[in-house]
């Protein structure tokens, strides 16, 4: 399939269209809303399902050294991408050091929903992928936060740091989304095919439909953020939200070949690098860098980069993966 066909097909998928519906509803100020408790339940479901499926895959394929290497590469990327991001932001925008570090942290970490959307595209192309990429996703959540803190500390007056990094990392590592992702991954691994046959009518069959509902909600939140937070975003910052994922994607693409990932796996690995967090990292930044303006990083990550990846980014990353891997 040509990259254009892929992009068109992706844009016309129910997932992307429900996201667009949510954005549109927010922009016309509709009172359409997903209750907070429902949004949390849907997020929990998606993480449980994707974690379990990854673990069940690994139980089928068995472990190999590629898994350890890819995990290592993921950690490295998650740590390096914020440094690169910080550099680009400081060069091209007027953001101060603290805000720049906070934004950069989001891009080093990952968006699990972007990952999930990419798995759908990959499966739509008839490709398989390495189940352990779920584990890679999980380990990529945290290092970016450390990198951002190191960046921010250089800029902060001494002694004001307040929280110790240890305490913060403990909080981040026991973050609910990581615990359910990793926990479900291990449960899928342990129970394997037997477990999968027991719960697949819950975690496999309705998965895409539930994803649509969640993306509708994400669209509503993103659209509301855009309506309210757009004035916080300067044009260079918006540009960053679109070109920087391509920078991260290039770094990941360069690693995907030596790691020996399959085509599907490479597409997902690139997507992880290119995606920006909007669940775990914003909460961590409120604790670690409370002086940073949340309207900036939330709006940029959820209102600009997420829709870009969902609509154009993922097909692009898949096309790149088809060229370089396999």
């Amino acid at each position: 399939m040509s990259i254009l066909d892929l992009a068109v097909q992706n844009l016309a998928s129910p997932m992307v269209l429900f996201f667009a519906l949510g954005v549109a509803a927010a922009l016309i100020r509709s009172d359409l809303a997903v209750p907070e408790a429902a949004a949390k339940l849907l997020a929990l479901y998606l993480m449980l399902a994707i974690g379990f499926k990854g673990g069940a895959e690994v139980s089928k394929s068995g472990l190999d050294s590629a898994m350890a290497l890819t995990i290592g590469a993921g950690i490295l990327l998650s740590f390096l991408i914020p440094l690169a991001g910080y550099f680009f932001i400081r060069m091209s925008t007027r953001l101060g050091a603290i805000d720049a570090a906070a934004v950069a942290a989001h891009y080093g970490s990952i968006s699990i929903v972007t990952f999930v959307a990419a798995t759908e595209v990959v499966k739509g192309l008839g490709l398989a992928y390495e189940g352990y990429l779920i584990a890679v996703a999980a380990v990529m959540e945290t290092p970016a936060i450390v990198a951002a803190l190191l960046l921010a500390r250089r800029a902060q007056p001494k002694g004001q740091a307040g929280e110790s990094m240890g305490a913060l990392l403990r909080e981040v590592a026991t973050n609910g989304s990581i615990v359910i992702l990793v926990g479900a991954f291990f449960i899928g691994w342990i129970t394997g095919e037997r477990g999968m046959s027991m719960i697949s009518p819950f975690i496999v069959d309705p998965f895409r439909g539930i994803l649509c509902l969640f993306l509708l909600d994400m669209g509503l939140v993103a659209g509301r953020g855009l309506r309210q937070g757009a004035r916080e975003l300067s044009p260079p910052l918006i540009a960053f939200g679109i070109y920087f994922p391509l920078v991260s994607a290039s770094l990941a693409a360069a690693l995907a070949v030596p790691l020996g990932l399959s085509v599907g796996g490479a597409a997902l690995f690139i997507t992880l690098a290119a995606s920006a967090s909007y669940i775990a990292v914003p909460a961590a930044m409120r604790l670690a860098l409370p002086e940073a303006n949340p309207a900036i990083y939330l709006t940029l990550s959820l209102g600009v980069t997420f829709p870009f990846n969902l609509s154009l980014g993922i097909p692009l990353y898949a096309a790149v993966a088809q060229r370089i891997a396999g």
Partner: protein
Amino acid sequence: MEMHSKKRIEILLEAPAQKRLTDLLDRLDVTGYTVMPVLGGKGHHGVWSREGLPSAAGTMVSVSVIAAEERLDQVLEPVFDLVRRHIGIVTISDVMVIRGERF
């Protein structure tokens, strides 16, 4: 009915910092606190709404502490120190309680 005069401290705080606040209150040895949900609001940091958010970032909670007047400053100073770094406001009001010895 005999009633005793106390102070009620209400702390409206961004949700990610809630655990820090309650840990602090534990250390300050207040007799208790109560956490209530907040749906949304508006202030210098802009408009907030809880709807649709799958994470704590971007939401707020309200934490109330009833304390004796003579303990007020002891509680307020460290609490305000924490709140100052975060998005949040602190209000204090007068209340009467019946079992005065409990607060």
